């Protein structure tokens, strides 16, 4: 078939028809070709149907193995379901929240530790091994017809990504097949991954940045190497050289690491031709250092948020002509800046960044009010994403990011909500009050608590509530938090008290 893919798994099947055998996806010492991946996901789809999964059912997958996650997501697409890939550190309270929120038909985890929790909510539970059928389970159940009434439409949901927001618990951004495929194609048009590329991705597939690398390499016919956290740390250069990487999908922490390492060796990953960056701005120092150590390397900075996946992308090395910008809108989309009354602002003026186009996702799962607010419908009809991010555009339409006006902040390139972190600290037994101060300049996010337990214990216990990367690395304990005239916590004074070491411990 030569028609454009309309459902997510069509993307895999087209790519598998073109090249079934080349190892396409690798992780640790495992690798899989596209033909194998297509077969595995078909087998899992039969398995899921046999267990009763139907169109629009949610399937939650928490695995540290990206090969398993990718097989599962295409299987879910085949049955017309909706997948949500969770980071390994989503446990206990954070996991219960997701299960309660999306009411999955099936939960898949690497270990059976979450089985009771999943089945208590009425979900079917499988370990990753059972899903892949390596445990000799009923994986090869007879296949009911995949066509007909249970085949999804391109306007049906396929993916839910839990993201932090101004709410105390994460909420899921829902994407349809059409929205995912449009975004992937529009990004690929800008990044132009090639069929001879090997993309090294140091982020897990549970982050949308990692997830979309899968779609991009399928479109390009390229190969993808997922790196573990350990491989992507100090051994990053070695990992790049050994995998023959030509593209590095980076966030600032990874790009900084690459710059530091590359400046200290003659053995450079010379095949590396492209570094993409998202998550937060790349420092000029890092870019200059990379250009001097790796002269063949092009840099493309990008900006986006899960709600529209990607908003803008810089042309390669566009930062030389438009320093500080995060690029131009994707083809077929529009990005503009609005003032307090929703009016469009002229170039140079700072306001809220708004995105229109087929990359704007469907909305938040079961959050009608929040969806109406963020995914605002102009004239009651036409969706436009009010990002909550602020910035301005120049005369050429290049976008410049200027931060947020709410409690969302970025640490190490990951979106974190102060409200969510404070709520998680509150849920820890022994904590009576919690305030998060977002990072400022070089100083990281700070947590201040009134608590009956040691401050280190607070941080340890928070791991049962939220993902580890969201937990501030520094906690200070107080007997009282400073307040202003309105009885609200005085954050400025609190910051001064913390830096002066005036906490109880």
């Amino acid at each position, binding site marked *: 078939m030569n028609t454009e893919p309309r459902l997510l798994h069509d993307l895999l099947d087209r790519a598998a028809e073109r090249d079934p055998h080349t190892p396409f996806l690798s992780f640790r010492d495992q690798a899989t070709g596209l033909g194998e991946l297509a077969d595995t996901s078909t087998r899992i789809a039969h398995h899921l149907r046999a267990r009763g999964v139907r169109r629009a059912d949610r399937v939650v997958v928490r695995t540290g193995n990206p090969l398993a996650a990718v097989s599962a997501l295409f299987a879910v697409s085949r049955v017309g379901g909706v997948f949500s890939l969770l980071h390994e550190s989503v446990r206990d309270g954070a996991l219960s929240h997701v299960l309660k929120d999306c009411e999955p038909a099936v939960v898949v985890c690497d270990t059976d530790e979450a089985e009771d929790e999943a089945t208590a909510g009425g979900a079917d539970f499988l370990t990753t091994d059972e899903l892949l059928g390596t445990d000799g389970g009923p994986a090869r159940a007879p296949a009911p017809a995949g066509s007909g009434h249970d085949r999804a439409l391109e306007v049906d949901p396929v993916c839910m990504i839990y993201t932090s927001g101004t709410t105390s618990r994460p909420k899921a951004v829902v994407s349809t097949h059409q929205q995912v495929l449009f975004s992937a194609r529009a990004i690929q048009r800008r990044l132009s991954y090639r069929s001879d590329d090997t993309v090294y991705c*140091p982020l897990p597939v549970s982050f949308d940045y990692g997830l979309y690398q899968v779609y991009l390499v399928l479109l390009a016919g390229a190969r993808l190497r997922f790196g*573990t*956290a*350990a*491989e*992507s*740390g*100090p*051994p*990053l*250069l*070695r990992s790049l*050289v050994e995998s023959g990487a030509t593209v590095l999908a980076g966030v600032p*922490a*990874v790009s900084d*690491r690459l710059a*530091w*390492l*590359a400046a*200290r*060796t003659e*053995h450079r990953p010379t095949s590396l031709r492209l570094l993409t960056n998202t998550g937060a701005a790349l420092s000029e120092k890092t870019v200059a250092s990379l250009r001097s150590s790796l002269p063949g390397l092009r840099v493309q900075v990008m900006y986006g948020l899960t709600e529209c996946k990607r908003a803008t992308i810089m042309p390669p090395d566009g930062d030389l002509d438009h320093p500080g910008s995060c690029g131009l809108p994707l083809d077929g989309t529009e990005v503009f800046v609005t003032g307090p009354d929703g009016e469009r602002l002229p170039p140079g003026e700072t306001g809220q960044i708004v995105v229109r186009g087929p990359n704007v996702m469907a909305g938040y799962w079961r959050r009608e009010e929040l969806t109406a607010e963020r995914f605002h419908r102009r004239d009651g009809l036409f969706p436009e994403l009010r990002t909550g991010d602020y910035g301005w555009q120049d005369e050429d339409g290049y976008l410049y990011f200027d931060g947020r006006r709410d409690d969302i902040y970025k640490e*190490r390139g990951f979106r974190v909500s102060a409200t969510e972190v404070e709520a998680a600290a509150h849920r820890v037994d022994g904590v009576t009050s919690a305030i998060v101060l977002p990072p400022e300049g070089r100083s*990281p996010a700070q947590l201040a608590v009134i608590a009956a337990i040691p401050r*280190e214990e607070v941080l340890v216990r928070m791991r049962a509530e939220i993902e*580890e*990367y969201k937990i501030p*690395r*520094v906690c200070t304990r107080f007997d009282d938090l400073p307040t202003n005239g309105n009885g609200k916590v005085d954050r400025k004074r609190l910051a001064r008290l913390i830096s002066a070491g005036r906490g109880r411990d």
Partner: protein
Amino acid sequence: MQRNDVTKALETALSEALEREVADLDGGVRLFDDLHLDSTSMLEVLMGLEESIGLEVAPEDLEIEAFESVDTLTDFVLAATRPAAV
């Protein structure tokens, strides 16, 4: 350089990277699983050691095995700081 000196320097570097006091480490303590270092803080540890004891890393020699535990990293630093005559 003695093993003790390296251990001290490592504890200081870890304290800075993790922004909390790290002392009296057992050699078997695992860096990722027990101390909750991530790939970024791991590199900060190396940067700290470069400053404090003049550790010169050859990025092409950095293998994941060296970053498993306090002992493996100490061994790695000792080998890297030993005079080149082998």
